[in-house]
């Protein structure tokens, strides 16, 4: 399938802050694409440009084969959006707001709407100003999910939802995926991203620093290994690609660049392994490397690993 979203070298500044600084992002048709990164990295800005609400300063952005700024109205017929900051009209009820958005997109699918109301356990007769934060979020979510748009753009759609509703949300996205529709999911809930997304892009300081499936991202980074060995762990520290080595009477643990795994394991074999556990980095570990203050180190590791 063709790319649903393709962005290259996109730049956007607000006065002196450079929110996007040469961003590249590709979302394939039919995939659920996770978009993660620290606060202020530029996720919402990217989405607003894709929706034609902001205009990029430089670079190229294409959405469903059209130009997000010039073809906004035509493109919006084919997508649904759930904003991160949900502000409802204080004196409209949730039901009215959901219907309004459905009609603006072409019509209300009663069955689907009622089904979603029930699954998300939302009272549609309350006024906008009386909903709790999570319930405000549900109104926006239902309004987005009730459409059969081919592309869903979701900006932190589950912030404020309780765990039960989080499960309902995941089910809904699985259904969307099964129908072959495309989803761009910006989120800070990593478990959600891990469970739902085919591919992930990590953004930091206005640039996408890594993109790929979770497996690919893991491959580019380190595996954590813990082992009990019979002999003293000599020579290990000198091997290339070993990090955070700790030894404590026969128990050793370290991280190893995934590209160096083979050498490392054969070296371990020579030490008389009694027990061995290894686990791939969790998404959280992966991300923390990018979120922290040491992006240079993380990027170095990536470069090394992929060479």
């Amino acid at each position, binding site marked *: 399938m063709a790319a649903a979203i393709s962005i290259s070298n996109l730049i956007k500044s607000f006065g002196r802050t450079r929110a996007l600084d040469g961003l590249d992002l590709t979302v394939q048709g039919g995939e659920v694409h996770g978009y993660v990164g620290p606060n202020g990295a530029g996720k919402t800005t990217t989405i607003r440009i894709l929706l034609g*609400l902001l205009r990029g300063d430089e670079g190229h952005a294409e959405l469903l084969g059209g130009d997000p700024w010039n073809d906004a109205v035509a493109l919006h017929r084919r997508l649904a959006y759930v*904003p991160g900051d949900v*502000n409802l009209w204080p004196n*409209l009820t949730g039901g009215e707001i959901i219907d309004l*958005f459905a009609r603006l997109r072409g019509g209300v699918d009663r069955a689907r709407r009622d089904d979603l109301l029930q699954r998300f356990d939302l009272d549609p007769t309350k006024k906008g100003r009386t909903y709790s934060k999570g319930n405000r979020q549900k109104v*926006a979510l239902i309004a987005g999910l009730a459409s059969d748009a081919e592309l869903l753009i979701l900006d932190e759609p589950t912030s404020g939802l309780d765990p039960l509703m989080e499960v309902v949300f995941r089910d809904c996205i699985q259904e969307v995926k099964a129908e072959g529709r495309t989803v761009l999911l910006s989120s800070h809930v990593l478990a959600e991203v891990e469970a739902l997304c085919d591919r992930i892009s990590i953004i930091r300081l206005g640039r996408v620093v890594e993109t790929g499936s979770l497996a690919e991202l893991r491959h580019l980074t380190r595996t954590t290994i813990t082992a009990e060995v019979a002999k003293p762990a000599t020579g290990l520290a000198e091997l290339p690609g070993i990090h955070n080595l700790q030894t404590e009477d026969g128990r050793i643990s370290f991280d190893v660049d995934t590209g160096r795994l083979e050498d490392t394991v054969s070296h371990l074999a020579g030490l008389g392994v009694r027990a061995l556990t290894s686990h791939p980095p969790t998404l959280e570990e992966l991300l923390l490397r990018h979120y922290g203050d040491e992006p240079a180190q993380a990027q170095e590791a990536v470069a090394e690993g992929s060479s």
Partner: protein
Amino acid sequence: MTSLTGTTRLIRFILRRDRVRLSVWVLAIALSVLGSVASFAETYPTAADRQTRAEVLDNPAGQLFIGPGYGSDNYTYGAMTANEMLPLAAVAVALMSIFLVVRHTRAEEENERAELVRAAPVGRLAPLTATLTVAVGAQLGLAALLTIGLPASLEGLSTTGSLAFSTALAGVGVVFAGLAAVAAQLTVAARGAIGIASMAVGGAYLVRSVGDMNDTALKWVSPFGWATEMRAYVDERWWPFLLSVALAAGAVAVAVAINRQRDVGFGIIAERPGPPRAARALGSPFGLALRLQRATLSWWGVSFFVLGLLYGGIAQEAASLYEDIDALEDYLVRIGAADPADQYLALTASVSALMAAGYVIQSVLRARSEEAALRAEPMLATPVGRHRWLGSHLMMALGGSIVLLLAFGLGTGIARVISTGDAGELPRLIGAALAYAPALWVFGGLAAALFGLVPREAAAAWGVLAVIAFIGFLGPILQLPDWSYDLSPLEHVPTLPVADFSVAPELVLTAVAAALVGLGLVAFRRRDLQT
């Protein structure tokens, strides 16, 4: 008194946040009064000049828009100051109190900042107490400025009179601070609280004018009446100020009682559940704009109709009084010897058009508040283009202006048909009101253009309206040059029913409005959404 914990800190915080806003309000009111008063010496150098002025104003229309006319028989500078400056300054002071109080009480709760504040060690009543303290302080500051400034601005203004003038003003300010505090307890929305309190201002002003016009006890029902009844510079009486203090204290007691009971973020007017599904009309950007603004428009419409009935009803009486005044009679002859009742009706039509401009501006700026509150964003992410979205709000504003003028014309027309028995008055007066529509559209266009070009400063449209109102009301007193009147679009409308209708100025106004609207639409289409 743990419920007051943190009050001092909050007072400092409010002063810090509002140091510019508050200074602008106080200085603007003080300087308007002092500047106008200072110009009296030049405009009315002799006692005879002042006496002529007194005669011109001594009629129902004068009592309606200006003051009750104490001291008309010996119209000193002092009497002039009290009669011509006090009533309008009192409205300004009332509005200052309302905006200040609602902004720091209900508006804070509505945007949920109050929760942050109350989560800190701050007592239940602290925000209200702090706000009222600042509001009263602002009134005292203004009163001090005026008490010192008035005698300095114009020789012949006594210190006692100036003190009475300032006290009267402060009385009004304090009363409406109290009433605004009550209004802020009632609704959940700040907009609603301001609406209720502003209606109290309008109602009180109306009651005062009707009371003064017929010199009935009705004027004693209104805080504005208490201010003018202090008879500053003429025959000072201090006890009406006690009425203001008593009402203010009563209002504050009610506000405090409610505030003590209710939950943060909630009002007294309970939220009822609404329809689970949208009505058919709520399916387009215009349907939404209509839904958001219909309540406001209805209130304005009803008010304009009632205002029209009132003006139409007293036109005859006003006219008969005109005829007794030689100076005015001469004036009427000079400009074409129209029927005095028509003169009066033409004047009221232009004044209501000025008020309607306020509706038009706030209605256009609704688009701005939607944008700033991030509610435009999801709308514009649906297949609704920028032009269609903004156009819907503009339709409410420009179409709404026609509704208001129609309501006003209907009101004056019906009242005149009843009093004259001439059915022809109705279409004639509706026409006279509708003639102002293109001028109102220019105000709408101005707000739209500002919204498109400089969204964060779009509220400057209010500044333009304020300047135009200032010139309109005080221009004759300040003897401003003629061209300054021409700045107002309203000035170019043929003054029906006195003058004949002419189509050229209407077309020019419509063209200017269209150009401004076009500019606003194009500029909005080309810019980023901004919070």
